[in-house]
Structure formats: structure tokens, C-alpha cells
């Protein structure tokens, strides 16, 4: 019975190792000015996919700007932007099959935009109205879509990572050639769930891709206070997992790395860790102010590496995009988002009965009694419950929904 995979050779002096002799390079194809590095080769991203990617990135930027403004106006309770990380998120999603599963953290709305989540769907979730599929139960940005194979977001960090390993194990048994992409930040990679997930994926040879968005900060904590090792990529070696570090603001590199990772996962059941080096250009959330923990100078340096601008230049150079198209699309997306928001914020809140549905497949009697008690209370004090009281007698308030 061997207790290590390698044949551990005997030495006669104490020899320690800390991994410093292993240097992990950064895979990159596009320079910050959008031109290709010499030796970058012919990109595999075709025109149709490239345009779909760029549209999703632009949509995400427009959505984030508009919704952050709405939060500042007091129209929305909370918001989180993807700004600066669109290439890492959309580029990796584009390298998958659209039926592959995505289990994201919370800042990955670009993946949904790429797969066709509609403005109406975004808005109904953000405003938690009667058309939100989750009935206004979660804070804004906790999207989910079964049709688009995007698991509903959960706030606790890293919990989706071992779930991705399990989901992918099921995909492997199902044998339909699908994989799962787990996306998370470098802060979440400190959680125990991350390590559990990678170890189990390697031991059980599971078709899963772990994409770490190393964006420099976990809220205010910089990477230097998050880990002492060489980023997150090096951790894969402890699990003998394939690992790659990629320029996360370079759409071509992200796409290519994920495409190859998917091949390893699906064809060889080899899990892969991708560390995308990027930067959170916006605040952590609408409740955060980065000026307390990082400098304007640092932010400006990263603005120059903006993944959208880089991709735009590359597209224009190839004749796949024009500045006029960009202006028109931006205009129409802004209108679409604004109109969508106006409609969504006018819609009714979810029916009161949705408060108790979906806790169990069949609602237990004790919980049904609690709803009846609550209804009777609201009827006695309608002025205290403006969200539900006006609709209590409405026909849409069906018992069947409980």
C-alpha cells in the first residue's frame, strides 16, 4: 500500500519545500491595447460568438451602471456590479456548451446575459415583484434560471463549489457530455468548501471547472492578507489537478483557457482550476465604499486594462464591430433596461401565500395554520402591511399557491 502517488525517494538530510520553485505563468493573448501578442496564433473565437460575447459584456456594463444609479436613487435596495470582470465571466461562459451547468457566486450576471436572461427577468428578480420566479424571497442579484442552466445564487460563500463537484459527478454518470463551471472569488477560495470541492473532484475524476476570479479584494481585504501562497492557482497541485492562470481581462485568453479546460473535463474527466487575474473596478456592493481601502491611482491603472475596451478594439481591428454599432447598441440597451425597470417597479409584490410555499414540496399543516393566523392579523391591521393587505381578497391570492 503506497501512501503517496509519487515514489518518495529517501534523503538523508531534512529537505523542506514550500513550492517557491514552481512558477505559474499568466496565459494572455491580447495586449491592453487590443492587439494580439506575437505568437498568440489564430484565435478560436469566431465572429458570431465574438459578437454575442461582446453584446453580453456591453449589456452587463449598461445594466450595472443603470441599476447602481437606481440603488443610489433609492429605487432599489441593493446591488452588485460585475464591472471589470466581464471578460472573465462572459468569456468562460462562451467557451461552454449552453447546456453546461453554471454555479456562480453573485457577481456573474454577465453569464446570464450571454445565455439570454431577459431584461424583464433581471428586473423582476431585482425588484422582488410578483413575477420574480423566487417570489421576492432573496435580495437583489440572486438570480437563477433552470432553462439557462444557472443555479440560483446563494449568499454564503463557496457553498456552490462542492455542489458543482457533486453536480458534475451526476453529469458524468448521465454520460451526456456535460460539465459544470463553478465561479467564485479569491476570498471564497479560503473557505473549507473550496478545498473539499477540489479534493473530491480530483479523487473522483469529475468533469468540473473551477474558475476563480482573483479580483484583488474580498470586500476590503487585499490578496496579501488573504493568502501567502502564489495566488489560488498553485493550490491545485496539492490535489494533483490541472491548473492555469489567465489574464482575466483578456477575452481571448479566458475563452481559450476555458475551452481547453472543458475538453479536459468532458473528454477526460479531469477537473481544472482556472485563476483569472482581474480587478473589481466597482465597489464590492452598493453598501461598500472602496476609497477607504484602495487608492484612486490603483483603480485608474486597472481602468486602462478595462476588458470591454480591449475587446472592442480587437473587434474593430478585425472589422467585426464599428463605433456606430456600439453607440446604437448602447443607446438601445439603456432604453431597454430603463423601460424594464419602470415596468418591474410598478408590479405588485408577490402573493402572501408565496411566503409559505416551496419550503417543502407539500406544505405541512402547521405552516398552513401560521399563514391563516397571519392573514387574520393583517386583516385586523391592514395599514401596517401595505405590501400584502391590498391584495388579500384578490383572486390572484390563491390558496393553491401554498
Amino acid at each position: 500500500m503506497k501512501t503517496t502517488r509519487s515514489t518518495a525517494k529517501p534523503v538523508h538530510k531534512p529537505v523542506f519545500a514550500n513550492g517557491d520553485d514552481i512558477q505559474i505563468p499568466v496565459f494572455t493573448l491580447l495586449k491592453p491595447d487590443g492587439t494580439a501578442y506575437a505568437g498568440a496564433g489564430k484565435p478560436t473565437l469566431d465572429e458570431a460568438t465574438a459578437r454575442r460575447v461582446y453584446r453580453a459584456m456591453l449589456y452587463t456594463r449598461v445594466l450595472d451602471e443603470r441599476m447602481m444609479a437606481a440603488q443610489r436613487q433609492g429605487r432599489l435596495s441593493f446591488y452588485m456590479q460585475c464591472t471589470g470582470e466581464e471578460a472573465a465571466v462572459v468569456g468562460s461562459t462562451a467557451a461552454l456548451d449552453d447546456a453546461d451547468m453554471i454555479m456562480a457566486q453573485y457577481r456573474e450576471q454577465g453569464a446570464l446575459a450571454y445565455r439570454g436572461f431577459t431584461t424583464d427577468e433581471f428586473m423582476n428578480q431585482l425588484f422582488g415583484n410578483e413575477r420574480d420566479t423566487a417570489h421576492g424571497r432573496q435580495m437583489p442579484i440572486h438570480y437563477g434560471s433552470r432553462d439557462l442552466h444557472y443555479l440560483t445564487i446563494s449568499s454564503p460563500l463557496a457553498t456552490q463549489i462542492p455542489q458543482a463537484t457533486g453536480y458534475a459527478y451526476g453529469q458524468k454518470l448521465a454520460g451526456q457530455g456535460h460539465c459544470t463551471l463553478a465561479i467564485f472569488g479569491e476570498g471564497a477560495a479560503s473557505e473549507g468548501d473550496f478545498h473539499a470541492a477540489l479534493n473530491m473532484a480530483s479523487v473522483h475524476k469529475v468533469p468540473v471547472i473551477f474558475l476563480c476570479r482573483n479580483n484583488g479584494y474580498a470586500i476590503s481585504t487585499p490578496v496579501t492578507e488573504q493568502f501567502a501562497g502564489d495566488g489560488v492557482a498553485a493550490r491545485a497541485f496539492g490535489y494533483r489537478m490541472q491548473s492555469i492562470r489567465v489574464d482575466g481581462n483578456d477575452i481571448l485568453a479566458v475563452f481559450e483557457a476555458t475551452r481547453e479546460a472543458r475538453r479536459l473535463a468532458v473528454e477526460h474527466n479531469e477537473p481544472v482550476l482556472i485563476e483569472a487575474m482581474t480587478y473589481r473596478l466597482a465597489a464590492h456592493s452598493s453598501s461598500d465604499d472602496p476609497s477607504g481601502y484602495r487608492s484612486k491611482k490603483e483603480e485608474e491603472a486597472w481602468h486602462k486594462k478595462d476588458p470591454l475596451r480591449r475587446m472592442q478594439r480587437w473587434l474593430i481591428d478585425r472589422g467585426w464591430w464599428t463605433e456606430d454599432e456600439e453607440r446604437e447598441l448602447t443607446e438601445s440597451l439603456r432604453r431597454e433596461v430603463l423601460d424594464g425597470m419602470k415596468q418591474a417597479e410598478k408590479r405588485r409584490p408577490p402573493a402572501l401565500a408565496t411566503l409559505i410555499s416551496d419550503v417543502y414540496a407539500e406544505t405541512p399543516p402547521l405552516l398552513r395554520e401560521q399563514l391563516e393566523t397571519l392573514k387574520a392579523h393583517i386583516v385586523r391591521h391592514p395599514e401596517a402591511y401595505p405590501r400584502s393587505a391590498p391584495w388579500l381578497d384578490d383572486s390572484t391570492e390563491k390558496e393553491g399557491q401554498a
Partner: protein
Amino acid sequence: MSRMNLLQAVNNALDTAMASDDRVLCFGEDVGVFGGVFRATSHLQEKYGRERCFNTPLVEQGIVGFANGLAAQGSVPVAEIQFADYIFPAFDQLVNETAKFRYRSGSLFDVGGLTVRAPYGGGIAGGHYHSQSPEAYFAHTPGLTVVVPRNPHQAKGLLLASIRSPDPVLFFEPKRLYRASVGEVPDDDYELPLRQAEVVQEGSDITLLAWGAQMEVIEQAADMAGKEGVSCELIDLRTIVPWDVETVVESVLKTGRLIVSHEAPLTGGFAAEVAATIQNRCFLYLESPIERVTGLDTPFPLTLEKEYMPGPLKVLDAIHRTMDF
């Protein structure tokens, strides 16, 4: 019918579940070739292959996270946590993920296929970390179903129902009874109802309510009380949450007296929940205060385990207090 102990009944239920549905998978620490430290998964790998019955690394949060993902994907995972005392690294996955999966997505996703099995309870000289009864922690989490069987027949039927339930189930097995409890178990595939308590003995003077290994204890107490002329009604709650209020209410309306007994500590134990609800529903029918006979508010001890445990004599004393009130 075959004579089986509780462990064999669990093994038989898993075998039945795996034979009837290819999507059922069994995994956990030492679950594979070894068949689990208690042998609950014996021969399953041999019969169903390494893909469907396997060892996992030693990481409870990973086991349950993995199981949540599998269930979301449409598989039917039956994960084993080696001892209920070691379930706490998975507390986040169970409380924040398993329990809320369906609710937070508006039923777009659920982990209804998931069952987590764990041996629980004292009486085996297991000290702090091989003895605990953690059901109350999970009973406080809407979305979870917690089931505890009392004997081999119940174990097979309730475990099959749990595996096939549309909701995730925590299935706590009384390990003291693994080999000690022996009985006739149907060879066929059968399910016993979840969310339903069972009146296992009718009586008219006092209701004794318990679950799992504690059922044996209240039965012994009832026998002793019976010889003194006290007629006890015994109820096995079976599903801790969502619990069967009506069966307990109906019994207490008849007897006017209630004792609830569990091994877990008194404060915040599930007996408190039962007592609060029953006094509310049966207030004017109660002849005496509802009594709780439970473990002490201490970590689970070793040498003085018998002193800690809510044994039959403690239950009998409580019956006397209640009858003489």
C-alpha cells in the same frame, strides 16, 4: 419476512433503493469496500459498483455539499455521516443550502432527492463525540425533514420513504439499537409514512412521547407503571419535523397528561417545542404540567453516562409526579 437487526434493516433498505432506482448513490467515509464503520453499506459496492457506492475523502462539509449538487442534478444521493457528532462541519451546507434550495429558487431547483444518514445517540460508552442527539438543531430549520426510526421494521420502511421523499431528509439511526434491536422485517419493498406519529400502545391515564432508541425506554417505564395500575399511551413521533401535532393532541385530549422524553439536553430540546404546542392546544384538558425527561444540560459524559441518560426509572418517577399532581 426475515429476522434482522436494525443495521441489517438499514442495509436492506439501501439495497432495495439501489436495486429499484439507478439514480440512488451511497457514499461517505469508509462506505465503499469496507461497508461503513457499522457495516450499514456492506456489499453495496460489490453489487452496484464503485460509481454508485464509494468512499469519500474525510470531509463532512464536502460530502454534504457534493450530495446537494448531486441531488440538484437529479441523482438520489444517500450520504452517510459516520457519527451524528461529526455532522457539524456540514451544518452550513445543511442549514443554508439543503434546507433553502427549493424556497430560494421558487422551485426552479431542489435537493429533494437527498437523504443524509447518521448514527446518533448514547448508551455505547461513546463519550462526548460518539453519543450526541442533534435533532433539535435541525428541527429549527424550515425545509429539513428529520426522521428517527425505533426498530428494524420502522428503519427499513422509513428509510425507503425518506430516500423517495420529494424533500431532503436527515435520517438519524439509533446506533445503540443497531445490533440490539432485532425483529421481523418484510423482504419486500415497502414505505412507512413520513410526518406521521404512531400510537404504539393505547392507554387512558397518561401519554408518553419519544422517538428512536428512547421508545424502548418509555416502553419499559410504561410496563412498570402498568403493574401499578397506570395505563400509558405510547407515541413514537418518528418524524421530528414537520411533526404530527394532531396525533399528539388527540392523545393528550384523552389522557390529560403528557411526558416527552429524549436523550438530548433539556434546554432547547425538541420536547420543549412539543410541550409549548400541546399546552396551547390542550390547556383546559391538562390534569398536570407537561413533564420532560431528558439528558442534562451538559456535554455528553462518559463514566457517569447512566446518570446522564433519561432511563426508565427517571421516566417512571415522572409518571408518578404527573399522576400524583
